[in-house]
């Protein structure tokens, strides 16, 4: 018994060292900017750089658009498949898992070949087109998580019964979808949304290959050219990850609470 | 010298003492039930016998050998858990073979013994099934076979039937008892179902808050409860407050009248002492029989139809008395609000030590 607990503490301790030391080192490095003393100059410099705000807000906007379109696409689809075409479920699930199999860099490679300036749908020609491609790329990457989260939420509310109840009250399907289904799977949508957000804001490969002024490529650029700002940015990114994970935890707990209360 | 002996066994979890001075001895081949409400420490005592918990005090001996320094895997005890606990990755046959395999038995021996065990529980035809392919009752029988395969010295069953539905519970408890008789294995059976305990045990230990309140045969426990707790827990007793009127004449005053009970039932309570008397529902009757010698008048407050019996509750001078009568379609049962008379024999009155 004593032995077991000892080894457990040891494992936790070793892991804690491996995980915490890089954070401490990053923090320390990010404060070295002023010679001979620790300061937050690097953070000041990061926030003073206009491109930080520009690229970050660009990425946030793209992420929000991705979330909105993704939810509008996935919630009705998951609902429809559950309600009307359960025989399609394996196929749809397979498709939603595909992005785990095909790496992002391969997907974006395909976009660049299919939708380039000389193709039938030259999306890369215009900024709007490239932005759209980026959004679709983010949607693809977040598909496994978003679909899973929404589908799980639907399982807990039993959409068929809810729909029948609404229909018996004379509701039409847009009403059913937006007034009954969406609010009930909101927590699922939310937890999918936070994952999507985390993926989209930090993503490097896709925006970089599409030449979009996004946060990920900006980070890489800073990394190549500056010394103290990169660790400061890493700390900021880490803090943002914390926040989104905490938000995910809160929403999933709400979801469980809602499911438990039924 | 008994086969299994627990003397002054105690157990605390941190500051909380869950088993106080627990003493009992079990003869070889005996079937003993632990009966008690949830949280009274039945599982804890069992787990100490199996070796999963170390007693904070006292000794446990099996066949005269102190078990204190023996790990669970050296005690040769069979255990059946409430949630079956079959190994999910093994077939029925592999589950039953597990103990033999780790003991290093030869292949033919294992096969023969597994077959013997599966025949014993009548599941020979399911030997190749996995646990998730079987019903709860079947799984529990496999668990029993697995526990018995190594010929353990003692068999411990911790509420083995409580996850099953009522019908299976009855048939399986009889099967367990029959197998136990056949093998003559010393067995402790934990339950909080009094009917279960009464129907299959040689002796019953009624536990309350970490103490063995009474140890005795089923009829002892039912007919001569030693404490008020036992009286209340085993069966549904009518408890009435009473006073000793005259100790030598063995008269007590109950519900406004004086009755004479067998002197031995008084347990030495003196004149004027406040005592508690108990009457089983089946000792009371609405009709006067030749042997009944006491009558209580009261107002009927509820009538419950339970199938073969009708349970009637009435208020006798502020004390609740309930009694059972057989359902007789030809007779009109009492109505709520009726004034009725309940008859009983004074010799059926139990006096509970306070």
């Amino acid at each position, binding site marked *: 018994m004593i032995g077991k*607990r000892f*080894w*457990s*503490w040891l*494992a*936790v301790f*070793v*892991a804690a060292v491996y995980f915490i030391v*890089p954070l401490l080192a*990053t923090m*320390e*490095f*990010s404060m070295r900017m002023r010679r001979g003393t620790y300061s937050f100059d690097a953070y000041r410099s990061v926030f003073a750089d206009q491109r930080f705000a520009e690229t970050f807000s660009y990425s946030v906007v793209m992420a929000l658009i991705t979330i909105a379109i993704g939810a509008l*696409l996935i919630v009705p689809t998951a609902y*429809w498949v559950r309600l*009307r*075409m359960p025989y399609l479920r394996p196929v749809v699930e397979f*498709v939603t*898992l595909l*992005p*785990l*199999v*095909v790496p*992002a*860099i*391969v997907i974006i*490679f*395909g*976009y660049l*070949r*299919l939708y380039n300036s000389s193709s039938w749908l030259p999306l890369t020609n215009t900024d709007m087109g490239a932005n759209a491609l980026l959004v679709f790329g983010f*949607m693809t990457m977040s598909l496994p998580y978003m679909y899973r989260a929404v589908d799980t939420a639907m399982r807990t509310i039993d959409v068929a019964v809810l729909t029948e109840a609404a229909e018996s009250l004379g509701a039409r399907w847009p009403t059913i979808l937006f007034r009954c289904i969406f609010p009930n799977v909101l927590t699922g949508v939310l937890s999918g949304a936070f994952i999507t957000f985390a993926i989209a804001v*930090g*993503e*490097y490969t896709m925006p970089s*290959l599409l030449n979009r002024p996004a946060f*990920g490529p900006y*980070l*890489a650029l800073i*990394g190549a050219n500056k010394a103290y700002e990169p*660790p400061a940015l*890493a700390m900021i990114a880490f803090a943002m*990850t914390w926040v*989104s*994970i905490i938000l995910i*935890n809160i929403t999933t707990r709400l979801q469980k609470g809602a499911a438990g209360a039924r | 010298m008994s086969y299994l002996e627990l003397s002054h066994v105690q157990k605390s979890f941190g500051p909380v003492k869950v088993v106080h001075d627990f003493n009992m001895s079990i003869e070889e081949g005996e079937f003993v039930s632990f009966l008690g409400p949830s949280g009274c420490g039945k599982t804890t005592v069992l787990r100490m016998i199996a070796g*999963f918990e170390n007693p904070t005090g006292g000794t446990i001996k099996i066949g005269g050998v102190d078990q204190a320094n023996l*790990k*669970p*895997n050296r005690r040769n*005890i069979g*255990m059946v858990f409430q949630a079956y606990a079959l*190994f999910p*990755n*093994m077939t029925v046959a592999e589950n039953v073979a*597990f103990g033999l395999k*780790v*003991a290093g038995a030869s292949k033919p021996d294992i096969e023969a013994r597994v077959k013997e065990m599966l025949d014993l529980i009548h599941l020979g035809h399911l030997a190749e099934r996995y646990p*998730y392919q079987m019903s709860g009752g079947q799984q529990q029988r496999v*668990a029993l076979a697995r526990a018995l395969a190594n010929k353990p010295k003692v068999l411990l069953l911790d509420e083995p039937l409580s996850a099953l539905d009522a019908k299976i519970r009855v048939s399986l408890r009889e099967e367990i008892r029959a197998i136990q008789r056949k093998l003559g294995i010393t067995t402790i059976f934990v339950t909080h179902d009094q009917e279960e305990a009464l129907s299959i045990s040689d002796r019953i230990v009624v536990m309350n808050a970490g103490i063995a309140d009474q140890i005795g045969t089923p009829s002892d426990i039912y007919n001569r409860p030693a404490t008020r707790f036992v009286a209340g827990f085993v069966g549904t007793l009518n408890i009435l407050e009473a006073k000793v009127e005259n100790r030598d004449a063995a008269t007590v005053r109950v519900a406004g009248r004086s009755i004479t009970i067998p002197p031995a039932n008084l347990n030495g309570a003196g004149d004027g002492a406040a005592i508690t008397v108990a009457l089983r529902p089946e000792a009371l009757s609405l009709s006067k029989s030749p042997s009944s010698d006491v009558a209580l008048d009261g107002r009927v407050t509820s009538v419950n139809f339970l199938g073969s019996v009708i349970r009637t509750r009435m208020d006798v001078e502020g004390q609740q008395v309930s009694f059972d009568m057989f359902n007789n379609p030809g007779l009109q049962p009492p109505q709520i609000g009726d004034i009725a008379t309940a008859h009983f024999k004074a010799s059926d009155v139990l006096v509970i030590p306070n």
Partner: protein
Amino acid sequence: MAATQPLLNRRLITDWLGIAPFALFAIMFLIAPTVYLVSGAFLDPNGNLTLRNLVDLFQPNILAAYIISIKISAASAIGGAIIGFALAAAISLGSLPAWVRSAVLTFCGVASNFAGVPLAFAFLATLGRLGLVTIILRDVFGFNLYATGFNLLSFLGLTLTYMYFQIPLMVLIVTPALDGLKREWSEAASVLGATPWQYWRMVVIPILWPSVFGTLLLLFANAFGAVATAVALTGSSLNIVPIVLFAQIRGDVLHNPNLGYAVAFGMVVITGISNFIYIWLRMRAERWQK
């Protein structure tokens, strides 16, 4: 019968209309791009069927990229799986206080998502030439890490970095499987005379190996497709597949677009195989988790 036929068809049409937007999206932005690349891998520049591109994958620099990629992915997956499993076992079975468990799980949720460019920055600040650990080792312990041939931009460095998200992923996936081990199983085994080691060998390992091995493959695929960390950490100095592909997309460094498709196809094959085995093993593992 004849009367219900059109009705049925109409219902079928609405059914398919309902799923049409998703189907269109999936075909245009997931399936078509993949199919395009995969088929491109089997064509020569003139559009004729060929296996030439696949054979060309075995030219030394591409083969080397695959080998080093596979080595890094395998090493970080195995290392991550072993350490992650130990950590998961510690918090699930180690009778540690409850707060340790929830702290570890929450942290793992964060760390498994802390990848890409920022992770590279963090490790540069730790084990780079001016990183804190490098400096402390040099100034306090008199140990010059870089004199031993260590380089963060190498196999070892990248493996160490990838493990930062591999370990947490392992913990997050395997902890539920370990929690699924019932206490009664170990108790039943021990009253039946088994030693702890026999219990692990005969019960725990058979129950857990599908999830552990499956997760190992998932970690492998995860590392194999990771681009950003590698690019940000090493620029283009390390010859691994995602970087080769990245450079190829940017500027056709292989001077043969179809060879580029073949490189992408090779990636899909490798991540695909590992993911499918992972999913298959998970389904197997769930059989017992009822």
